[in-house]
């Protein structure tokens, strides 16, 4: 039986934009299948938290069906990161933890070797990023569905063991140096007051 919809809201009935000043767009990188990594720098210190919202389909990767994304704070590639994660793929659940890592492992995106036009998505929250009295906590959800059993849903949390305020974020697709942020990919940084 097809449901009937007796309640509805027409978006056009809402007049104006009730913009909230508490959530602001800071900067965006738009993928065009040319870069393997990029850095969002000069991040203002005027927010309480940061959020990164990503949609991505990787390009120029000949083998795998998905590619991982790593994130670096202030270009720190020392072993100051840790991650705890859980993910589901098909009918299985996996969890684990990685200590003393040179990056925050964010999750993975589908490559051009899987379902056409499928994109992966990721939302990363970086808490109290400008506080110089404590380490930085990162949490994220991510995933992709390709209409296959290889689809994945991730939940992660991590830590950057530094009291330095975060002023830049570098994003790197798997370390083979050839994978690209594909066309129609975007990495958008927001600040939350």
């Amino acid at each position: 039986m097809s449901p009937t919809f007796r309640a509805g809201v027409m978006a056009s009935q809402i007049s104006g934009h009730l913009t909230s000043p508490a959530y602001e767009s800071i900067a965006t990188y738009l993928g065009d299948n040319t870069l393997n990594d990029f850095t969002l720098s000069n991040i203002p210190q005027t927010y309480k938290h940061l959020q990164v919202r990503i949609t991505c389909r990787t390009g120029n990767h000949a083998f795998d069906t998905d590619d991982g994304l790593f994130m670096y704070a202030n270009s720190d590639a020392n072993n100051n990161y840790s991650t705890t994660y859980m993910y589901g793929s098909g009918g299985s659940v996996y969890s684990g933890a990685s200590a003393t890592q040179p990056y925050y492992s964010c999750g993975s995106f589908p490559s051009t070797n899987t379902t056409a036009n499928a994109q992966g998505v990721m939302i990363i929250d970086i808490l109290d990023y400008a506080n110089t009295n404590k380490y930085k906590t990162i949490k994220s959800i991510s995933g992709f569905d390709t209409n296959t059993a290889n689809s994945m849903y991730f939940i992660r949390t991590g830590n950057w063991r530094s009291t330095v305020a975060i002023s830049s974020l570098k994003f790197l697709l798997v370390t083979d140096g050839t994978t690209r942020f594909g066309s129609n990919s975007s990495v958008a940084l927001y600040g939350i007051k």
Partner: protein
Amino acid sequence: MAAGGTYTPIASTVLSSSQPGITFSGISASYTDLVLVCDGAATGQANYELRFNSDTTSLYSRTFLTGNVGGASSNSAANQTFIRCDFGGNLETTFGQGVVINIMNYSNTSVNKTIISRSGGTSGVGGSVGMWRSTAAISTIDVIATGANYISGSTFSLYGIVRA
């Protein structure tokens, strides 16, 4: 760096009576992502299920991860007629189960549409990722309680986010 306020309320409703679903229509294509927040209960076994642009064909798929006192599990379903957006448990008949659904890149006409959610309630916690295999911009969202009704007092709110 560019900066600007965003996370704009688009539409919101509180059900005044039991309903089998709700429709957000006439959604502007001027945002980058949509965020749909649902906090409800149902008259019987039901979930938060989405359809876009009134498409009832089998172009949807989803994968969820869930955990409760009995353990954790995951499941994928291909070629569905909707995206089930909660963690896999059924809605309760009393309030206490909600979901935040991010509909990413919803107006891009070059890609399929992907959603990702976090949800939880008294019977579990988890989330899901789903895909609508269409490159059409999303202008209508149906939230469906197949087999039951959302009860009075259930709330549904839609927000828009614009990137720099």
